[in-house]
């Protein structure tokens, strides 16, 4: 008996192909039953997300025979009439277990170290378990994968830091202000990135949002969506007395906020800290304002370089994670129970 994996992921197949092979949640139990009835697998679980479709099985067949059977199952189940070659990967023990552990830890994800896949893998396993399609070997493999993922999360920095412009902005805000719920955000220019950043801030506790835009209708619409209020575009400087975070992304060809404008406003703010996020290109805010006391200005390049640095750190950390995984897979394979278990459930 051995655990084998067949799958397509963002690394091997384009989205057009991945979506062709995706399993809807409600069809998975039936597919698993068909797979087991075919005699290819004695235990099976299917993971189907936007970035990957993978079938984990425990089989008595030789790996090559199992791969051929699984590939045929995939093609037949989805009535696919094209050819599948390099788009599909097949892994036998110990690589299959190593892959499972990597997927659980987010090391095989598009954004390395992300945690969403952990929940998706858990759901996939629980669905298979609930319909009695897993047995002793897959149960052990999946449970060990979840434990290893948790261990990696606490023992390494694989999940640390913001790998997007929006989350970098949120992290900056949290480094300046103690409780985001007590601070008001001003959005200047109702663009998509501003909206996403505002939503990210809302998810971390921001309650009050003010929106201003050259088009008052667009400002009102975004304010309504975010549960905030809209102010006329010519009145936004007056808001600086109350707000503590400003996100600017207008299409203005010149600076809309410069040092001469901000200096008296800062005095009126009694020098409370002010975080300015300028995600516009060309820039909306004169870089000279960063020289003012208690003003922290970050433009899109600053945020992107933060995200890139974090990604680099995560990649460096991935080597540590791989080492942990290799040790844990070896330990699992050496465990008598895993290598000798043949029974179901």
């Amino acid at each position: 008996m051995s655990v084998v994996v067949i799958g397509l992921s963002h690394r091997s197949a384009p989205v057009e192909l991945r979506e062709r092979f995706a399993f809807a949640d409600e069809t998975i139990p039936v597919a698993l039953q068909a797979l087991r009835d075919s005699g290819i697998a004695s235990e099976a679980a299917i993971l189907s997300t936007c970035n990957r479709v993978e079938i984990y099985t425990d089989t008595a067949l030789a790996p090559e025979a199992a791969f051929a059977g699984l590939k045929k199952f995939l093609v037949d189940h989805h009535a696919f009439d094209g050819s599948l070659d390099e788009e599909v990967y097949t892994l036998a023990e110990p690589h299959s277990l190593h892959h499972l552990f990597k997927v659980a830890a987010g090391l095989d994800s598009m954004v390395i170290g992300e945690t969403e896949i952990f929940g998706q893998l858990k759901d996939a396993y629980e669905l298979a378990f609930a319909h009695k399609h897993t047995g002793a070997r897959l149960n052990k493999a999946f449970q060990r994968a979840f434990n290893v993922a948790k261990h990696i999360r606490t023992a390494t920095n694989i999940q640390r830091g913001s790998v997007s412009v929006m989350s970098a902005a949120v992290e900056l805000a949290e480094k300046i202000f103690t409780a985001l719920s007590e601070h008001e955000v001003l959005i200047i220019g109702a663009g998509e990135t501003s909206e996403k950043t505002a939503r990210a801030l809302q998810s971390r506790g921001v309650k009050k949002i003010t929106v201003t835009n050259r088009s008052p209708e667009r400002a009102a619409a975004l304010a309504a969506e975010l549960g905030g209020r809209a102010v006329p575009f010519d009145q936004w400087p007056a808001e600086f007395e109350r707000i503590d975070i400003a996100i600017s992304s207008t299409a203005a060809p010149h600076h809309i906020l410069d040092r001469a404008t901000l200096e008296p406003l800062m005095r009126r703010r009694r020098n409370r800290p002010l975080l300015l996020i300028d995600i516009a290109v060309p820039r909306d805010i004169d870089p000279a304002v960063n020289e003012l006391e208690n003003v922290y200005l970050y433009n899109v390049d600053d945020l992107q370089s933060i995200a890139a640095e974090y990604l680099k750190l995560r990649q460096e950390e991935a080597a540590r994670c791989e080492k942990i995984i290799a040790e844990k897979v070896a330990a699992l394979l050496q465990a008598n129970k895993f290598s000798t278990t043949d029974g179901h459930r």
Partner: protein
Amino acid sequence: MAWFTDRHCFLLAVTFYGLSTIYSVFLWRKGFRRDDWVNYILLATGVALHTLAMTKRGLSLHSCPVNNLYEATTFLLWALGLASLAYALLPRFKFICAFAAPLLFTVGIFALMPSLDPPHGLKPEFSGGLRSLHAATILQAYGAFGLAAVAAMMFLVEQRDLKIHKLRALLSFLPSIQRLELITTRLVAVGFVLLTIGLVAGSFLPRKAGVSYFADAKVLWSALLWLAYLEALVAHKFFGRPARRFAVGIVVAFVFLLLTFGLTNKFSTLHQDNTPPATNNVVAMLVTRHPSLVTQQ
């Protein structure tokens, strides 16, 4: 164990502060990324030994051990160390130990200079409840100012990193700058209240005829400090002095306090040590530091 005096104990405490300082250098170099307990344990061991040293000295004197510059300095450091340990338990404040350790170590080395610890008389000159209250509250105030300076240093490091867009600002496990600013302000306020109580208590102490409390060099120096901290607090709280300038002021004020603390005693009529005659000094020192010798006799 009679040979193991309170000074030996304090020396051990300073050694642990030194180890903590060395460890802190690595934490600084790593940008405070790893949030571990090693430094806390090192500092806590130092503070425990420090407490033991002060207890031994206090028991031998039968009073609060704040009778000479060594004792005053160790008391100040103890207050600072203890407060650092307490603050380090707050979320994201563990690294306060990394900022406090170098201060505890360097001032601890200074306190160990033998000239700062002249022997007392058989009964210390500064015994009595009001004197103990005066000395203890003032030294606790200095401890609070010291910790405020440590928090202000943390603020300045973090604020600078944020200003120049250094990734370390985000990677570090330091608290937000707003929180650091709040903690600094609160510590200065606590120190200010304690200093006020200490100075008021001092004004009620008996003194020699013709010696004016308010003309004494140390009292004037303390009043200057009192005014400096009051000005810093008022300017920051009520007149919007920027947090960075406030933090710099707090660090500068504490550095000034440390550098001039010992010196002012020399010019103070009220704080001159009424040391017993030279022949009694040796006996007094032996009795104070080696009480077992008396029982052996």
